[in-house]
């Protein structure tokens, strides 16, 4: 059962582009999508692949489109009033030959009636060929990473969920979007998960909605959504819904792995980053088909720099080989030379591609190391790691904050927040000192108020949790956590400490470990367990869970970070047979998150 979500989603999209018929008869057609649809398809298929599916043009629904009267059209849009209006407008103007309408999530009866009314009025009912609900409203960024929707992330951000003046309708909308997305994911997988979530926050609401929705879909005799899953459900997947409030530090932490650094510094969005090279902003695509990227994205930055170097050398060697070929040709026979030339010519495009990739990674890595040097990120990383593992610091946090030559205001604020959240009792006068130091450095300290509130609530709830974390076994290997790599090459890394990331488990990873292995800990015992497969809702499901889970889907309500994603990936590599897919309502970089916290702080005061 190679149930890979990404391939499943690609298959589903291709099926849709094939006009939802299993026959592989190719007709030319036009694809019209809205922003949501674009963001779902963009990481999955390139224009070239779309063309292979028979798509000749892809257009945004809101753009001005010219009529092409003899070609069928495939819509891939969210079921909104606006889109329905646009579609019925197109029908009225007889823009295309036949209309195949696909909605990203289930379309409501009301909207369908609107569409029917509009098409009757404009006399174009016969043009509407097919209407489908696709259940594809999630964005697979990578093999094991998805978000709700990259477009319009504001509406379900951490801020939207936690702000005190939020309207019920807004939160409702946000939670519905998240529920739809996770529901679509499991529809695409054709499996019913066991759901676990902590009590008393947004994650619980999402979990309950999700369970209800799945149960309804299973009961509904008309829908075929979960029908064929009975065969494959020998091993069921586990869905863990978590809330961002559980671990705020991880998103603010200065990171040291390649992908997370790119995300933090260069705004990785839909697998694409913007890097400034020679005063020109360049766009780089970091797709899953880039071998080097796939291998190195989770590694700490110094190692990546070395790997880039090695790759560059390999490319140079290949180039030399080709140059040498010219000399060899004179000596060896014609027969041999012919073959060699043919081989070289066929391998050239591949080599060019590789060279291009290496150039790209060199540019990115150089820009990264410039950034790291300018902002002393290595120092921040080191200090923060030490704070989080509660080792003694060489230099007190206050001194670092007061040091004007180190880092930007944002970096300092992040450092302090981590320090503040991990230290259990900080006296008021000290806190005041810190805040003054921060204000001197030019930080907006309004977010600390919000954090103080959050901290008081969480410390009331779980005093056991902090005790547990401080005595947790995973911290015992602290002493060898920072190994300074001595033989590290000087390539691009001058002035940057070569730190090695320790294999520390983040809170999310620890939770996943406990829940999937069914370990008994005070931390996770309070988690709710829901099973949409059982017809009646039962209070206590825990005894029924006997097997450990191999397929785990983690979803963080309120934004996730690449740090957590990579931490989970490392965990799944260490445990063969375990597959983890990480998802969140949006991938937040720390700047974005900090902004949201500041907004929360200023609106609560």
């Amino acid at each position, binding site marked *: 059962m190679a149930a890979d979500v990404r391939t*499943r989603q690609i298959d*589903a999209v291709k*099926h*849709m582009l094939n006009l*939802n018929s299993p026959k592989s008869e*190719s007709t*030319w057609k036009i694809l019209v999508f809205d922003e949501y649809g*674009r963001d779902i*398809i*963009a990481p999955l298929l*390139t*224009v*070239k692949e*779309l*063309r*292979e599916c*028979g798509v*000749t*043009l*892809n*257009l*945004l629904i809101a753009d001005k*489109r*010219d009529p*092409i009267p*003899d*070609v069928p059209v495939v819509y891939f849009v969210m079921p909104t009033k606006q889109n329905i209006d646009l579609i019925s407008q197109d029908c009225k103007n*007889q823009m295309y*030959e036949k209309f195949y309408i696909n909605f990203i999530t*289930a*379309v409501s*009866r009301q909207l*369908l009636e609107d*569409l*029917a*009314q509009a*098409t*009757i009025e404009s*006399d174009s*009912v*016969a*043009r*509407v*060929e*097919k*209407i*489908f*609900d*696709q*259940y*594809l409203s999630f964005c697979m960024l990578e093999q094991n990473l998805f978000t709700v929707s990259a477009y319009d992330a504001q509406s379900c951000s951490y801020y939207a969920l936690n702000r005190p003046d939020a309207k019920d309708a807004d939160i409702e909308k946000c939670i519905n979007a998240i529920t739809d997305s996770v529901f679509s994911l499991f*529809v*695409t997988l*054709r499996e019913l998960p066991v759901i676990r979530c902590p009590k008393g926050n947004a994650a619980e609401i999402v979990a309950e909605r999700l369970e209800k929705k799945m149960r309804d879909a299973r009961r509904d005799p008309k829908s*075929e*959504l979960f029908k064929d899953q009975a065969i494959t459900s020998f091993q069921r997947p586990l869905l863990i819904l978590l809330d961002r409030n559980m671990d705020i530090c991880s998103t603010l932490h200065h990171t040291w792995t390649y992908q997370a650094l790119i995300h933090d510094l260069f705004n990785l969005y*839909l697998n*694409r980053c913007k890097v400034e090279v020679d005063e020109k902003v360049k*766009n780089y*695509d970091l797709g899953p088909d880039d071998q080097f990227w796939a291998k190195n994205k989770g590694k700490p930055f110094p190692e990546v720099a070395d790997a880039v170097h090695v790759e560059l050398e390999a490319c140079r060697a290949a180039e030399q080989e080709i140059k040498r070929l010219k000399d060899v040709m004179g000596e060896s026979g014609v027969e041999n030379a012919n073959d060699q030339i043919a081989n070289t010519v066929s391998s050239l495009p591949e080599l060019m591609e590789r060279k291009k990739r290496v150039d790209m990674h060199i540019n990115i890595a150089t820009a990264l190391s410039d950034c790291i040097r300018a902002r002393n990120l290595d120092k921040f990383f080191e200090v923060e790691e030490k704070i989080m593992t509660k080792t003694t610091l060489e230099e007190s946090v206050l001194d670092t904050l007061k040091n004007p030559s180190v880092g930007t205001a944002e970096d300092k604020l992040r450092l302090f927040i981590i320090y503040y959240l991990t230290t259990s009792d900080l006296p008021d006068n000290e806190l005041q000192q810190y805040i003054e130091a921060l204000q001197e450095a030019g930080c907006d300290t309004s977010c600390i108020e919000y954090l103080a509130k959050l901290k008081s609530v969480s410390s009331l709830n779980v005093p056991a949790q902090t005790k547990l974390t401080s005595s947790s076994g995973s911290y015992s290997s602290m002493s060898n956590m920072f190994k300074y790599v001595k033989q590290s090459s000087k390539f691009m890394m001058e002035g940057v400490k070569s730190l090695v990331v320790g294999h520390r488990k983040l809170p999310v990873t620890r939770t996943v470990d406990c829940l999937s292995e069914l370990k008994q800990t005070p931390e996770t015992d309070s988690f709710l367990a829901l099973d949409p497969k059982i017809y009646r809702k039962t209070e206590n499901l825990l005894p029924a869970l006997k097997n450990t889970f191999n397929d785990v889907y983690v979803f963080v309500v309120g934004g996730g970070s690449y740090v957590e994603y990579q931490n989970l990936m490392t965990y799944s590599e260490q445990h063969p047979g375990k597959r983890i897919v990480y998802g969140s309502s949006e991938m937040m970089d720390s700047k974005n998150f900090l902004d949201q916290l500041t907004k929360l702080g200023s609106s609560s005061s």
Partner: protein
Amino acid sequence: MTCRERTLEYRSIVQARQSRIAGAYVKQNHAVAVPPTRSQFNKVAGTIGRNIANTCEKLEKLALLVSNKSLFEDRSSEINQLTEIINEDLSGLDRMISELQAFSKNSAVQVNLQVSQHSNSVVVSLQSQLATITMDFKEVLVSRTESIKEQKQRRDQFSSGTISSAYPGDGFPESSLLLQSERSSATDTLLDFSDMDQNQQALSLVESQDSYLQERERNIKTIYSKIEELGQMMGRLSQMIANQGETISLLDTNVTDIQTNVEAAHSELLKYFQSISSNRWLMFKVFGILIVFFVIFVVFMA
């Protein structure tokens, strides 16, 4: 399946509404059902697509025949025939596509931009399909040459072996001298005959082999020429594709391009506006100075 069809639901809603309104709409409904006739371009593109599929099938058959490497079952005539057919098909398709391209260029002038984009990408994708098929064909031909070479080698091995063993004298067991002499005297005349016979046999064998080899050589030559032709065709195709300037890009580049263009246009407009307004000021200043001078002139000179 992961999707859910809602067409029926939609149709039932439509029907319910229509019956409610009744009369007026029902009559019109019949008129609506006629879809517009497909244009010339689509028809031609459709035929080309089908032809490409047919050619693909033939090519698969050919590949199957070529991969059959049995020495005894020679089907070269069949293979040659198929090669010829496919070659013709390919050049025909090539011609048709270039015609289609010309057609789309001519007709695209009158209609809007997106129609021409559409037809353009249809042509490009047809071309790339043809290119892949041509590549496959070339590969099949190359493997065919290889297998012919191999067969020839094997045949050489076998035939030289049979000739050496066919020489007389080998088969006689040397039991005793007496018997041998007796036998030799007895078979002397016979031997002569058989020797000649054997020689003749070998000769004819060599001859037939010669003709066979010549035929094979011819085959190889035709295949070489075919490959050459294909190479030329590929060159033309690649040129065409380069002309089309097909760039592999992600979906949203167009959108971002538009945005940057709009922004650039906006900034240009702003610049222009500023330059205009500064010009205006210049004009006012010049006028002011002129008037001052005029006043001075009038007051002091007159």
